[in-house]
Every structure is written in C-alpha cells, then in structure tokens.
C-alpha cells in the first residue's frame, strides 16, 4: 500500500501518477520498487565532507526508529502508531483521516565514498537528520606541484 506524507499535494500526486505509469510500462523496474515518495519523505544533500539525509517523519518516538547501514545500504524503519480512536469508541467521530500510520521502511543506497563508521543520526521537530561522513581519501584536495 502506498501512502504519501502529503496526500493533498496535487502536484505530487500527478508526479506519482506519471511515475507509476512509467514504472508500469518499464520491463525491468528497480528491485526495490517505487523509487520516490512514501513515508517518510526524504530530502538529500551533500557537502564535500558529508552526505546529509533529512527524513520528514513527524510524531515518532526516537527510541523506536531503526536506522541501519549494511554494506552501503541505509534503511530507515519504524512504526507510527495511529492516533485515531478505536472503532469501539462510538462517542468520537473521525471527520478527516489523512495522516500516515503503521509500519514504514525506506531504503537508499549511499555513495561508495561514505565511511560506515562516520554515520550519525538526530531527531528534531519531527525530522530525522542522518549525516554520513565521506572517507578522507575521497575528499577533494589540492595537489601541490613540485
């Protein structure tokens, strides 16, 4: 089941539709399925020293989030409990239910120059920030001419 972090974002939905149509007609899709979208939403950037990953995952208990790095494959997994009242509670009425709930997992392949021992993660204001340091040997440097 696919559910975006922003189900009301029309442009994102059109983007998803286009992507799904392209993937449906692709004879050899990626082994890990959908490459974009889902929960949490990811933004990735880089500096010459590190790779910065921002996962927009609001409402999680940081202790329950699993961040694993195995042979260059980074996995972010966890569960977001539903905050809706249970079905037995007949006194409460749910008018809008758009927020994601349930288990989630996102997997991404890091670049080869990332140092597996230099990965740190922090959680602030509902954003999981993962910093992966690049190897010293892979960093750009100026070569002196003798």
């Amino acid at each position, binding site marked *: 089941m696919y559910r975006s972090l*922003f189900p009301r974002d029309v442009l994102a939905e059109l983007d998803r539709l286009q992507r799904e149509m392209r993937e449906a007609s692709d004879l050899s899709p990626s082994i890990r399925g959908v490459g974009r979208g889902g929960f949490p939403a990811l*933004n990735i950037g*880089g*500096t010459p020293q590190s790779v910065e*990953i921002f996962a927009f995952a*609001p409402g999680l208990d940081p202790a329950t989030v699993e961040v694993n790095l195995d042979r260059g494959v980074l996995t972010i997994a966890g569960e977001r409990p539903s905050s809706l009242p249970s079905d037995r509670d007949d006194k409460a009425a749910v008018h809008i*239910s*758009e927020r994601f709930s349930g288990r989630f997992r996102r997997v991404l392949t*890091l670049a080869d120059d990332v140092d597996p021992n230099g990965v740190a993660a922090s959680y602030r204001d509902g954003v999981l920030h993962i910093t992966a340091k690049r190897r010293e040997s892979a960093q750009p440097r100026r070569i002196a001419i003798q």
Partner: protein
Amino acid sequence: MNDSTAVARNAPGARAAAAQSEAAPRAETALIPPVDVIEDATGITLRADLPGVPKDKLTLQVESDTLTIEGEVGIPTPEGIEPTYAEVSVPRFRRVFTLSKELDPGKVSAELKHGVLTLRIPKAEHAQPRRIDVRVD
C-alpha cells in the same frame, strides 16, 4: 512499502531542488499538511503533521470563523550543502479551515511535539450535550 533511492549527484529530484533555491520565494506556495480531525462530545481535536517546523515558526490564527495553520520549515543545515534530491520541495506549510458556530475559538489550545501539532477546539458551553431531566408531577 519498500523503496530505494540512489544518492546520486544527478538524481531526478535535483532539478526541482535547485530550481527552488534559485527562484525567488513565492509567498503563496506552500505544502498542505495532512491532518486528522476527530470530534467528541466536548470538542474537536485536530492533529497536523508539520515536520521541521519549530515552535517559533508556527503561526496559528483564528479570525472570526477561519482557522489558519501556517508553518515555516527551519532545519539547521551544514554550510555549503548542495541539494541533490528533494521530496519536500517547498519549506512551508499552510492550511485553512472554517470553524462551525458551536465551536469556541477563544478556548483553542495547541501543542507542538516532534513535528505534530495537536489543536483542541472545545465546543461552546451552550452547545455541549446536556441531559434533560424529565420531571414527573
């Protein structure tokens, strides 16, 4: 819900991210945060996902019967960062709701925790359910 994303310099999202940082900020463009709205006997509870919005960049406004939720994403990023891939392309959230008459906008309480805003809008005293005693003469 498995998926993979290669961290590549020329990722498909790089264009959007680059265009966004170059273009002049458009005040109107904002993401619509997903919400849950639950009503019980004494009021309405609204939860909205606003990841990356710190408390000081969140604006809640009630004007007559209109509730506006506005937030700006404020994530500290390292210097010289170059975006390569972005699913959250606009660093702003905005959503407007129309309140109904029986709600009491003067008693709205709000809490922001881990990027989730919880709003409690109680119903006005006169709109609370009351049990009417039947008198037998």
